[in-house]
């Protein structure tokens, strides 16, 4: 840390000597470990690419820490220029009127060409307002994918299931071969939010919450309840491993080959390649053939970058310049390759294809293919307040379904009731 600060300071001095003091802009982000290294590289590349602005990227811990730090800084009128906010926290920052400058306005004011159709369909409107104006710049975007242990599936003599019906047929064979068929790492994201998107089901009233904060959740529906009844039955039959709510515990079960298939994030790909001592492949998120017709595209997960308001025009111009740099195909391709997050623009995707990246590692393309699948009315995203707490409620009730403390019906009634209570609180807080 100290060395980094020292180096940053040295860099500032060096720049100060050559150019007339560059405008400094700060970026608070939640990318640590290997991801943080990639962020630092992108920052250094941006600083080397021009001399007008100097970007300082600071890791503030995880997603929640970063958001909390941003809130505290904003209240103290000491906010950074750019902050990374995760999907579930988007409603909090977007609905705080005037806290951020819409990225589309920011870019257009600074004469950066902007066309929302340059972005791939899955990320295009997720951080936009109800009129389709982009508020947050999509950054690290991922989607849930099925990872499978090739050897395990071969031993059981089954193919990768595309649908849950196929999964039900394969699970007993995998059990016979000595594996728990499936685990997944994020119940709210994978088996709630993306379940709705995959089956083109409406997630909340008021256009999934984009049109208003006065909104009710629509989780308490037969398709979703039926799915969870199946999950519970699979667990009781030994086809589904439930290792609690922790992401890592479920992933470890797959890495240690107790579980044959695991649903995680497309962003998990790079890490798995290092930790898994076996040959694995990726596939799309399974869907129920019996629900709806064709599978639809999934939501993105991950986070986006917001430009805090209250800065000078000069600094805002620097933010615009950085966003322009960040969305360049080369930058996106580099980010995609290093991290496993999907490229967010069509041009970057084309570049990756042209470069032959997917020939060399076809699994890296599954995520973006899934996000590019046909969209439906309800696949562009959701905007729900206090959604972080709603996810907590879901985690809690899923625990209760899994340990038999509650029936699926009772758990979903609680989810509906508590989620609507939270949404009402949010509406009362933010609507005036």
């Amino acid at each position, binding site marked *: 840390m100290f060395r980094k600060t020292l180096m940053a300071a040295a860099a500032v001095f060096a720049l100060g000597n050559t150019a007339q003091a560059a405008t400094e802009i700060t970026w608070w982000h939640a990318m640590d470990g290997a991801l943080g290294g990639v962020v630092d590289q992108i920052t250094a590349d941006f600083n080397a690419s021009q001399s007008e602005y100097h970007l300082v990227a600071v890791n503030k811990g995880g997603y929640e820490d970063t958001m909390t730090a941003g809130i505290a800084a904003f209240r103290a009128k000491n906010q950074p220029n750019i902050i990374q906010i995760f999907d579930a*926290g988007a409603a*909090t920052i977007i609905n705080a009127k005037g806290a951020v400058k819409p990225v589309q306005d920011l870019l257009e004011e600074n004469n950066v060409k902007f066309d929302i159709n340059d972005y791939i369909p899955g990320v295009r409107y997720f951080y936009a307002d109800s009129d389709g104006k982009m508020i947050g710049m999509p950054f690290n975007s991922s989607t849930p994918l099925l990872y499978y242990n090739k050897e395990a599936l071969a031993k059981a003599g089954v193919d990768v299931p595309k649908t849950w019906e196929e999964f039900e047929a394969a699970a007993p064979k995998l059990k016979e071969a000595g594996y728990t068929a499936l685990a997944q790492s994020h119940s709210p994201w994978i088996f709630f939010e993306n379940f709705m998107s995959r089956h083109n089901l409406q997630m909340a009233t008021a256009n999934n919450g984009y049109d208003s904060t006065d909104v009710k959740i629509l989780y308490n529906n037969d398709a979703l309840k039926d799915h969870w009844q199946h999950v519970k039955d699979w667990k009781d039959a030994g086809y589904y491993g439930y290792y609690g709510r922790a992401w890592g515990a479920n992933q470890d079960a797959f890495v240690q080959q*107790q579980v044959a298939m695991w649903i995680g994030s497309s962003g998990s790909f790079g890490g798995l390649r290092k930790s898994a001592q076996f040959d694995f492949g990726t596939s799309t998120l399974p869907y129920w053939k019996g629900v709806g017709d064709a599978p639809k595209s999934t939501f993105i997960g991950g986070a986006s970058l917001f430009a805090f308001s209250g800065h000078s025009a000069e600094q805002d111009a620097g933010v615009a310049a950085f966003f322009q740099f960040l969305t360049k195909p080369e930058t996106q391709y580099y980010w995609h390759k290093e991290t496993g997050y999907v490229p967010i623009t069509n041009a970057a995707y084309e570049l990756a294809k042209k470069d032959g990246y997917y020939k060399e590692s076809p699994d890296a393309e599954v995520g973006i293919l899934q996000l590019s699948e046909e969209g439906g009315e309800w696949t562009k995203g959701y905007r729900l307040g*206090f959604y*972080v*707490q709603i996810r*907590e409620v879901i985690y809690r009730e899923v625990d209760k379904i899994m340990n038999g*403390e509650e029936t699926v019906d009772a758990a979903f009634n609680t989810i509906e009731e*508590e989620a609507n209570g939270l949404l009402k609180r949010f509406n009362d807080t933010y609507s005036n």
Partner: protein
Amino acid sequence: MKRVQFEHSAVPYLFVAPQILIISIFFLWPAAQAVYQSFLLEDAFGMSSQFVWFRNFEDVLSSSSWTRSAVFTVVFSVLVAVISITLSLFLAVRADEVIRGAKSYRTMLMWGYAIAPPVAGLLGNMMFNPLMGDLYKAFNSFGFEFNHIQNANDATFVVILIAVWKQVSVNFIFFLSGLQGIPKSVQEAATLDCKSAERRFWTITFPLLAPTTFFLLVINLTYAFFETFGIIDVSTKGSPGGATATLVYKVYVDGFIGADLGGSSAQSVLLMIMVSVLTVFQFRFIERKVHY
């Protein structure tokens, strides 16, 4: 009218001033802020806010998860305090009797004191990891169907175990020094009068340790209420089904992760009230039985 007045010097005030200042800045002011916030509905970034009287308290008190958490906190705190005090008293008495290698025994028993709660939580987490945890495997090989991931009682057991383990060494240090503060002459006189070591303990040693025990009771309850946060955050995160979420953990989840300032302020005000009541109770009813 003539008033009787003592000569006051400013010096004592000068001496307490830094302490008062610290308490004001780091306790009174934030506490007042929390009380103020608990009456507001305010968006996280402070762009708009409205005064809503007791709405936040109503929302908190009517939520089943808060009630569950409150009950858990009380049960958890009492169990952690009682078990860790009992255990460390036993260990201290035993260690006090050791003649050969006394120092190494004592040092070993004090070691845990140096461990931060999140680290203790992490250690516990590893030992109870379903895939590689030794304790997890041991319990299951004895025939318990132990599964703290899904069973609320098992999860409670795990967090209590970690919290107690972490606290025993702290209590041990205090009890050991308490024991060594008991005059040798008293002990020798007691030995002449009574042969039963157990009886001597309950009639002589324990009453003389009462001030220490009372002090530790207060400290341990505070520990279980507040400082176990790190353990819970690292080990169970309040799961399964919110069964191991203490009130402090809930304040953190709603306020810091969820950005609901009014709701979590209301929760912390309620927590403040609970702890005040508890402290008053301890000093009024339990301290009476303590002889210094």
